[in-house]
């Protein structure tokens, strides 16, 4: 079934392209989802000074490495957008796949961490700290996976030179996922 975008999609009363306006609203809704979870965690964390002890069992080097990986992947997706805007499709395509690779490394490190922690007995059920840890990082990990899948789909369009603004939109989403991690990192890894 061929799909033709309606006339409505091409209108831009606010001066923002419709796609970018929508992705900002997606970010708004994601802010409250992650923010709600983090706020619940912070309330418990302030209540329980002893949770600092549990937090010392998370691996700061692994978390730091993942922060670095995500920051770098943010750089590569913004470069992909820059390249797409300049019309350099091959370069843009490569940068997108660099970003997907970054997401892959992030997930590998994450799964290494989880395996180590679970094998030490710190499972989802160990106590509420670990429940929050797995819920928050798991939800974040799902967003990373979703971002990678969407980027892979977009990269096909980029090679054909279609839907180039989508590179910018997925970039905004990816930076948001990055920012969420910037807060999860100190919350679960550094603050002891």
């Amino acid at each position, binding site marked *: *079934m061929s*799909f*033709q*975008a*309606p*006339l*409505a*999609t*091409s*209108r*831009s*009363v*606010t001066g*923002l392209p*419709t796609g970018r*306006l*929508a992705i900002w*609203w*997606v970010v*708004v*809704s*994601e*802010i*409250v*989802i*992650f*923010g*709600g*979870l983090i*706020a*619940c965690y912070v*309330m*418990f964390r302030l209540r*329980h000074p002893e949770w600092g002890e549990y937090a010392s069992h998370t691996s700061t080097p692994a978390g730091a490495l993942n922060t670095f990986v995500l920051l770098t992947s943010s750089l590569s997706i913004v470069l992909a957008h820059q390249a797409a805007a300049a019309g350099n499709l091959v370069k843009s395509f490569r940068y997108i796949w660099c970003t997907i690779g970054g997401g892959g490394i992030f997930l590998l490190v994450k799964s290494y961490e989880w395996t180590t922690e679970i094998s030490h007995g710190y499972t*989802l*059920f160990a*106590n*509420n700290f670990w*429940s*929050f840890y797995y*819920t928050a990082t798991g*939800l974040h990990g799902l967003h990373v996976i979703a971002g990678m899948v969407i980027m892979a789909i977009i990269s096909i369009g980029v090679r054909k030179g279609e839907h180039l603004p989508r590179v910018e939109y997925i970039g905004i989403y990816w930076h948001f996922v990055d920012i969420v991690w910037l807060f999860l990192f100190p919350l679960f890894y550094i603050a002891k």
Partner: protein
Amino acid sequence: MAEAVTTAETTEGAHSHHGEPDFWSKYIFSTDHKMIAMQYMFTGMIMALIGGYMAYVFRMQLAFPGESVPGYGTVTPLAYNSLITNHGAIMIFWVAMPILIAALGNFLIPLMIGCDDMVFPRVNRLSYQIFLLSAIILIASFFVPGGGFGGAWTAYPPLSAQSQYNLTPFGAPMWLLAVALEFVAFLLGGINFITTTMNARAKGMKMYDIPIVVWMIVIASILFMASVGPLIAGAVMLLFDQVLGTTFYNPDAGGDPVLWQHLFWFFGHPEVYVVLLPAMGVVAEVITVFARKKLFAYKTILYTTFATGILSFFVWAHHQFIAGIDPRMAHIFTVTTVLISIPIAEMLFCYIATLYGGSIRLTTAMLFALSFLAEFLIGGVTGIYLGASGTDIYFHDTYFVLAHFHYTFFPIAIIGFFTAIYYWFPKMFGRMMNETWGKIHFWGTIICFNGIFLPLFVLGMGGQHRRIYNFNNFPDLATPEMQDLRIFATWSAVAMLVFQIPFLINFTVSLFKGKKAGKNPWNANTLEWVAPSPPPHGNFAEMPVVYRAPYEYSVPGREKDYWPQNMPD
């Protein structure tokens, strides 16, 4: 369509390229906003029948405890819990939300702002499909071992979190999953509504030229988006508690059950306004058209809507006054709760002022709109007793609360829906509904509605507690006087359900045999009445241009008493 986009804004050319679409792509997998609106509306109507049937069953049990209910059989305590839980959940999440936000939003927004579709038609279709999936999961949860979830629609833990308490090991997670999917569907829909209204308005339509109902649906979508986030996170946590055995809400293991109450009501109270605002918008449209008078104080209504929306985030803990919350917070929340009645009252005054001096036509739609004002007022006034923490300690969890919120939700969901359907039916299906049958339906519904819930106020003040399966177990509450009131309320409920039959017949017959409606049977100003009835794919033969505000009725010096928004002079 692509070439049409770049040149003149016309969709005429697009139609010739389309063949006649087959059944599946026309009705089931359509991306057309009007068809998706119909899908939402009919799904919502079917769910309303299911929810109404549940109300019938448990009202019969309360009036005649232990006796077999015709059409159901004997009601067990577990089944009773499941019935009241799912009645509440269905009526709010699967009736009020899809009909008022999704169906009206989908149908009205593109037509009223003068464009051909939503900006993301496929996201729109996805949103309905997720919604349908959630409805199917909910219905399926009644038939799994253990039956449907019975922990009340608020799902407070630990009752909802542990199956040794709620005895529904499968029903509870399925219920929660259905609710979560429903949230996702409305997040997708909401982003679509907001983006469409911000970006795709017709040429010339400025901020203050947008019809009130569109404003209200958009503001409601924003409220929904901003309030539902923490609950989505909280629902994931509750789901883990139910299925995996984590202890987020288990006080025995360091969790906090009050946290869920906060998460739920931080969403749950704005949610009241999420469904209220579209209904208020519908009433504004209908009142101004049938009073043939300009809407009184358009900007004031708009600003009070903003005020209501913002204040609605500051009142949630009034649901928890006896949950052991910090008493200092109870004081604050009492003040904010009473404060929110100011903008709402102001809005109602503006509506009444619109009526003053108009030439009122009492069509069925107008009757429903007027009854909305009256009935909602009762709901609002009784809310003051519940918003004040002192009186709420006595009234909490009694039938007074129940009657109060039915006096708000019934006008919102049911009267609001009937107002909209009697008014926009000609636009949706191109035919008129029968007014005589409409009026029979109106009077039957309104009289029976008051017959149900006025006695419940009295019972609630007498101390009758909610969520009780059989009042014979409580000698103080099993007096003949109280039982008579229960029986009266139950027969009123049955009569009200019977009075929906004229509506269903009227609806079905008018669909095929009703008098043909022209483009603009009510002589209204807003843009949807410029399109043919029913509007074809693409809505407008030529995209309208807006020249004025939407409510220019009975302008002095003009021959006709209306002045459509798209008319140059």
